């Protein structure tokens, strides 16, 4: 099961925080910081897996991360997930974001954090992998976008001027 999905930038600013296991608010923030420091120490040419920090439960949990330009995508998973499988799941997630936002960048994640969450909800639901098929996820999002357009014209206008 996936315990948490964290996205933060090179300075440790959180861009997406989603916990599937309950942690108190302040612990969540500490976990983000701790994870950031764990990940930051690592060069790009060493492996993408590391053991969870002491806050998240130590060696029972794995942090699997990928670094894209300014952003780190970190999935915290328990032993029931395949490391390489999750690594590719991150890729799927990011590629989906890229398709939905057309050349996704950090700003998209900031200004459309709700939308990013909706996309994530289609990929991972309650800590379980729901959909790994990129086209399917994009189709779901487009359906929701149509809904948005029909109901909320001015807002869409604003979105398009982005």
């Amino acid at each position, binding site marked *: 099961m996936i315990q948490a999905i964290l996205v933060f930038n090179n300075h440790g600013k959180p*861009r997406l925080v989603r916990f*599937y296991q309950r942690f108190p608010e302040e612990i*969540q923030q500490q976990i983000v910081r701790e994870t950031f420091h764990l990940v930051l120490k690592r060069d790009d040419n060493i*492996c993408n897996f590391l053991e969870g*920090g002491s806050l998240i439960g130590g060696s029972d949990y794995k942090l699997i991360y990928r670094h894209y*330009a300014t952003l780190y995508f970190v999935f915290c998973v328990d032993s029931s997930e395949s490391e390489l499988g999750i690594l590719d799941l991150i890729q799927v997630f990011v590629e989906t974001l890229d398709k939905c936002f057309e050349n996704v960048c950090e700003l998209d994640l900031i200004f459309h954090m709700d939308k990013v969450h909706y996309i994530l909800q289609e990929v991972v639901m309650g800590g379980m992998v729901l959909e*790994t*098929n990129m086209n399917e996820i994009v189709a779901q999002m487009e*359906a929701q976008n149509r809904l948005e357009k029909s*109901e909320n014209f001015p807002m869409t206008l604003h979105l398009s001027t982005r």
Partner: protein
Amino acid sequence: MSDIVERTLTALPGLFLQSQPGGGPAAAKTPFSSRLGGLVRGVTALSSKHEEEKLIQQELSSLKATVSAPTTTLKMMKECMVRLMYCEMLGYDASFGYIHAIKLAQQGNLLEKRVGYLAVSLFLHESHELLLLLVNTVVKDLQSTNLVEVCMALTIVSQIFPREMIPAVLPLIEDKLQHSKEIIRRKAVLALYKFHLIAPNQVQHIHIKFRKALCDRDVGVMAASLHIYLRMIKENSSGYKDLTGSFVTILKQVVGGKLPVDFNYHSVPAPWLQIQLLRILGLLGKDDQRTSELMYDVLDESLRRAELNHNVTYAILFECVHTVYSIYPKSELLEKAAKCIGKFVLSPKINLKYLGLKALTCVVQQDPSLALQHQMTIIECLDHPDPIIKRETLELLYRITNSQNVTVIVQKMLEYLHQSKEEYIIVNLVGKIAELAEKYAPDNVWFIQTMNAVFSVGGDVMHPDIPSNFLRLLAEGFDDEMEEQQLRLYAVQSYLSLLDMENVFYPQKFLQVMSWVLGEYSYLLDTEKPEDVIKRLYKLLMSDSISSETKAWLIAAVTKLTAQAQASDTVERVIQEFTVSLDTCIRQHTFELKHLRENVEVMKSLLPVNKSCEDMVVDASLSFLDGYVAEGLSQGAAPYKPHHQRQEEKLSQEKVLNFEPYGLSFSSSGFTGRQSPAGISLGSDISGNSAEAGLKETNSLKLEGVKKLWGKEGYLPQKESAAGDGAEAPPLPPEVSPSENIDQAAAKRTQAQVLAPSKEEKEKQLLASSLFVGLGSESTVSLLGKPDVISHKFRRKSKVKAAKSGEAASTHNLTCSSLNSLSHVAYEENDYLTALQDGEDTESKDLPLGPELSDSESLSELPLAEKVSDCSLSALSLFADSDMEIFQPPSSAAASLTRDIASASCFLEETAGDMCSGRMEVCSDETVSVSSYKLWKDDCLLMVWSVTSKSGSQLKGADLDIFPAQNFKISEQRGCCLPVMEAGSTKNFQYSLQMEKPFTEENLSGFVNYQMVDTHSVQLEFSVNLSLLDFIRPLKISTEDFGKLWLSFANDVKQNIKISEPQAALPSALKMLQQKLRLHVVDIQGNEGLLACRLLPSTSSLLHCRVHADGLALWFRSSCPALPDYLSYQCQKVMMVGPGI
């Protein structure tokens, strides 16, 4: 992608300017949706955390105002929510918005609802109280015809849902399993999986539906159901063996590319699905040949098909290998899997290398030759810059450790240990090092030094088994006497030199180990006298950084050394210093030391040298004190009661306070004794009681439960596996292997790479040869039938002996503690005796009261059952002829009184069937007296008031009124009036009372109006006290009925009542309960009695009495919650009033 971000960032200010045209007053009109932009821009522009905090707080307060303003539309609210989410993500508290998030989810249109649900799932957690407000909305949305709404509801359910509300939505979600849209079915399956995780018993009934989901025509739904199956098979694989065929078929189809192309990821068919299926198969086939045979084919195909063109195929391969090694082995597959592992390990990609190491770690015990194959890679990984790779390598090395490579491997582990800071890594590694060191230690010096490193690094976080195992090893010794002594001597020497170092701080646990070893084995030293060691210990004792537990250990060591040292000033100082210590444990130790020092002979026999494991003959029953005890008893001392018994008595007398926790800690002050064979156990129950001896033994060291790491067989690989690479070289006896192995490794190295070995390479090869030394030659060892001689350096003595010596150690402890405390016993006993005498004095003062008490009791022994609470003297006197003069009314009334008695007795005759209380005057004036009776009729309480004229003259128009009471139903009964006695002078009024609501005590009041012949009408008020007991009636039932009723009642109360000579008292006690409380005695069997009663009109209550050693155990049960408590109170009262009856 980084370019894009940078470009966008530079364009950022321009973008914001566009979105905020004009500024000034126009800014107020800016649409809400751009406010987030403003906020983000603000936050990004800031440089310090402090400024950010200020800005966000400002933002939050403006948001707070907005969300609570009644004019805020849902659309604005939606925008506010997004901003709140942003603030929460940055770690600021936005709890004021939670309720609005729920409102938005409840009331908004589709888009607003979506934001509302998202906000709720981010803000709240499963047990948040606000979540209950959402349940109805979720139920409504689940029933919606709009697919998006259903999807949203299912998502929120699988993310956060209160466990206790699951039943509310469960049927709706079950229905969704048949939904026509596959996305709904898929989400429903996952939602149910979530329920299975948080409340497994609530979804048990739908397991059959999961099977349907597994066979769903949509691949996505099937894949979702695999989550559930993986979980359930992990919990109990035997229950799902029948599904093996289905899983194999599915995997075959997936591998064969039968799925729609949509499911391909980089042209690999549904990789995540394959991974799941392979994991399930691995679990199902574990240790099960028949099931495993079903999957050989498909595993073979999977291995074959996985062409290595993408990362994700490695993921599948890894799972394949894992499955092949976890199911019942098939050599063909194992061979292929081994090759795959090679691909991983040799891959230049670091991720794959990591997984290769992980795979090796899993399989190396089945196939050690694999490790040998990849030894050079493993060596490289050992020095890898990535700590994760290093750790995985150490894990692998740990599994291949044997007596020949242990020094190198442990050294590598220690190196890593010194670098790591995470506590869980330290605990884990320290445990492994200690295990390996004990198992394979090559010599004493190495062993002690390694353990020193373990103790100083592991310190206070390591598992407590480690120090205790170490000490046991030292104490119990092993077969070779010489070796044993040398090990101990070396330990002592190394600890002394460690202690001599200035300004070094050791963990408390390490110091405890040191103090024990120094205390036991300092005698082995030739060069230093015990006095010198004591001095060092004293220095430690005076140090501030030492915990009091460690101090207790240190004093114990000093005590042991004192036996060997002649008069020592340091000991004197220790005694002076610590007899006044605030810590009771330390003080106790010091006192023991002090008293023992006064008798050197006893001390020497108590603390013999090197006997920590030997039996010591002890009179555990302390029978030599019998004479003393007998003397005490003959002088009138009370017999000793063990602590728990005293406590029980105390508890039965006063229910208010429970002293249990204090009692427990009182008897466990010997905590140091649990951790080492010779830590002195301090039984602090200093008593001369022989019955306590058995208990005391448990107070000392527990050896039985301790995990035995020692003596385990060393690393024993499979014999046939040597057919692999390692056996190419001729078998070598272990003695010559190191040098030979260098050549072997070197040869292989040149085979693999045609590079000239540099100096560095040579070092690595040397390392390799030392690391993998045991692996290649194992087959030889076993072929020659010669066991690995060196591997068990510290071979423990046979188990039986070990156990025996364990006992011995504990007995030894016992000896110390019980004998040491002897001197105290003497003092204490004296105190106790004086205290007893005092107690007797007060007791004898009490004695004169006794006769009085018994007198009053005899008074109460009346033919009628008395209601205890109403037991007033006047009522009593009425029936006791001799006490006439006590009666209150003036003497003129004497005549009428006699009449009254007559009338009462007549009255009694008439109502002989029912029990009846005594007559009681409730009020009077100079002309009339009003008295009342209670008649405990079978179905009600009948109150009779009689108004009697004292002068005997005619009562005219006398009338009685009862004030209405809320708890009673009162009805006047005119019909069955008593026969009028002496017509006119007495008038009786009868009321039947039914209880409406249970109560314990209640007053019933009323007034009497009467008119004498020649006077005006007079009003007299009165009141009577009624208690619940007035409404208790015997319940006549059989023993069987009693049993049935007993089980059906839920409310029970237990109560212990102390009575003297309980064995004899049962019948009389029951009789008393029958008389005084009107309970019906159902049955008496042996020392148990059954009683039953009912509370009018029809509430019944049962009582079970059992006699035990010092009292009566009462156990009430009833259908009414208040009744047992009340009855138990009444019973207690009855029993206390009449002790010994």
